[in-house]
């Protein structure tokens, strides 16, 4: 029949040859195309809020992933912490979210509508599909990833504040550089001696932004057994003797004892070798390493009744994907998250965070690393001791925290008294909780 058809077309020899070549080309393309489709390359957008030393650690992880997984390419975008959550929320609303994101444990309630429920996604139970098991993660961190009965996150790490101190300045001040202060009394003694040699004694608030003063106050408050809110978040419970004692201590560092000056940047002072002691998180590790300062890390001193430090956790999430994103992409994203967990020794070694994935946390590679010996072991000990305290976990966490920190900052800068700061903060947070 086909022969009859072509006979009737009365094609010249030239046209017949051309038709044959075209048919052959189409068949080859189809075969090649099906080969390409069978080997489809997925491109995943991974947005993070990392911007310091830990950002470069994530770059290493992604580079390794892209090298070892030719079928998937991660396109990594990293940025500032402050507006990250707003961007993530808006991109989900706009239908253009990244495939993988990061969420702090404390922001799970507020970000929940923007995240894919991992056990009930449209692609199925993603944890089962990727083989992600809760028992492979640090228990507290795994448990904290559930909000209102739904799991949204896979924990990446925990991080917390510790005491970083300049061993050379300790020596110069006549202190034992291998014996950092462990109690409030020892801290005060060390601070006085460092101040006497003309250096800044201590900066208890990282780079000195309002949220860092708030964290420092939290630490001093929690160390007395205080809690910020009642169980149901009906009202604030920090405007009391404990809250006042904590804030007065913090204010005195800058206003009365002269251990530092308002408006300063603790990290900059430390890397310049002008600061004896700094309260900052484990992500400071690579900055400290590159600074050339002879430093060491120590547990947060127990200034009041018990050792407590501020901490949080990073978690990996899959933002809610629009329907145009196929289930295969979502499955690829969760498998990528699992891969990152399994390779989070890089996160620990180069980012300075304590990985949440137990095989890595307890593994030899991390345990023998310089990062572990210099800082992570300290954090791990504090976590095991039960010293880690999460801040506010509530859908309005950011607004509540902001309402506290503006007054803490004013008190630290000597603009209002500590009592006035607590009164104003209490009034404002109670109004937010009541609205």
């Amino acid at each position: 029949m086909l022969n009859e058809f072509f006979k009737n077309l009365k094609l010249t020899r030239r046209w017949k040859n051309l038709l044959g070549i075209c048919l052959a080309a189409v068949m080859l393309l189809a075969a090649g195309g099906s080969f390409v489709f069978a080997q489809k390359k997925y491109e995943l957008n991974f947005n993070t809020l990392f911007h310091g030393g830990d950002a470069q650690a994530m770059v290493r992880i992604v580079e390794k992933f892209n090298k070892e997984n030719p079928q998937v390419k991660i396109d990594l975008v990293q940025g500032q912490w402050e507006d990250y959550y707003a961007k993530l929320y808006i991109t989900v609303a706009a239908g253009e979210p990244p495939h993988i994101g990061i969420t702090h444990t404390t922001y799970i309630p507020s970000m929940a509508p923007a995240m894919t429920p991992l056990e009930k996604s449209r692609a199925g139970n993603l944890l089962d599909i990727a083989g992600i098991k809760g028992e492979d993660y640090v228990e507290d961190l795994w448990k904290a990833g559930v909000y209102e009965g739904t799991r949204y996150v896979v924990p990446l790490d925990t991080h917390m504040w510790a005491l970083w101190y300049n061993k050379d300045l300790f020596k110069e001040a006549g202190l034992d550089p291998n014996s950092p202060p462990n109690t409030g009394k020892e801290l005060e003694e060390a601070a006085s001696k460092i101040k006497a040699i003309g250096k800044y004694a201590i900066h208890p608030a990282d780079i000195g932004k309002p949220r860092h003063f708030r964290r420092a106050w939290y630490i001093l408050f929690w160390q007395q057994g205080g809690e910020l809110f009642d169980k149901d978040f009906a009202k604030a419970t920090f405007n009391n003797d404990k809250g006042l004692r904590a804030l007065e201590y913090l204010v005195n560092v800058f206003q009365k004892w002269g251990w530092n000056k308002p408006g300063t940047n603790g990290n900059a002072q430390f890397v310049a070798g002008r600061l004896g002691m700094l309260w900052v998180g484990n992500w400071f590790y690579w900055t400290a390493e590159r600074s050339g300062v002879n430093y060491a890390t120590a547990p947060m001193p127990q200034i009041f009744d018990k050792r407590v430090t501020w901490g949080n956790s990073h978690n990996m999430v899959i933002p809610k994907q629009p329907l145009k994103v196929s289930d295969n992409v979502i499955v690829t994203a969760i498998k990528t998250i699992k891969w990152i967990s399994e390779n989070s020794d890089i996160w620990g070694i180069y980012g300075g965070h304590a990985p949440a994935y137990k095989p890595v946390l307890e593994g030899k590679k991390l345990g023998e690393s310089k990062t572990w010996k210099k800082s992570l072991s300290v954090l791990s000990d504090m976590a095991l001791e039960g010293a880690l305290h999460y801040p506010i976990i509530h859908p309005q966490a950011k607004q509540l925290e902001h309402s506290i920190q503006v007054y803490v900052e004013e008190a630290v800068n000597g603009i209002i008294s500590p009592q006035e700061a607590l009164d104003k903060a209490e009034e404002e947070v109670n109004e937010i909780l009541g609205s």
Partner: protein
Amino acid sequence: MLKTGLFFGKRGHRSQIEGLLFILPYAFLWGFFLIWPLAYGFFISLHKWDPLRGSKFIGLANYVKLFRSPIFWNAFFNTFEFAGIAVPLIIILGLVFALLMQRMSIRGGRFIEASLFFPYLLTVSIVSLVWKWLFDPDVGLVLYYSSRLGLHLPTFLADKFWALPAIAFATAWWLAGYRMVIFKAAMGDIPPELYESAELDGAGGYKKFRHITLPLLRPAILFALILTTISGFRVFGQVIMMTAGGPGRSSEVLALYLYRRGFDYLQMGLAAAVGFILFVIILIITVISFRFLGFESRL
């Protein structure tokens, strides 16, 4: 047919249509990028808006909440304080620079002019970071050299009283150069015969400036004033980078207040209401400026 003849026959109608066609592209852009976002923004402000959790119409409740909020009024007055310092400073500095450049015929005058204009080429983040470091109490040049001269200046950005003026000063450094260019260009259009006649009549420098330069610069001043007022009321980048609205809320301006409500607390409806209020404020000030200054240059 008669109607058609009238429509295309009369020159007036035809030129009207031509005129309309000429402005149509701009009108489309204006409508799409200004009117539509404004209208939609107002629509959002009438809701408790959450694109993911679901939105609810609440009428003017967001506006009532704002007008009852002391934090909103704090941002409102901070914005006026900032604009009240920055706008005159930018205009006056721009005018002074323009006058100096016009009169200077020394070697290197062009280089000086370029140096005064250069800050305008920088982005807001660079300007903010540079001045944040200049004002730093530890390593900042401002406090270091002032202390060497025996001056005990406040830690500007950590001082409740000085934070906004410090930001206004940095802003003036950034923008005055561009205003200088506007004024210098306008001064170039003033006929030199007017100054010669005034000199012949015995007018000195001040009288020439007061009675010739200033009146003939009216349109340029109005243009610069409107431009600068809008930037003044919309200030955001410098504030968030230099002080984050602190210490406390002493430098929190309306744009930052809007940003926090919308993007930190995800209260989009409330943020849209702040945006609409800001629009109304700027519109009123612009209309008043037009009314009092006018666009005519006249002696």
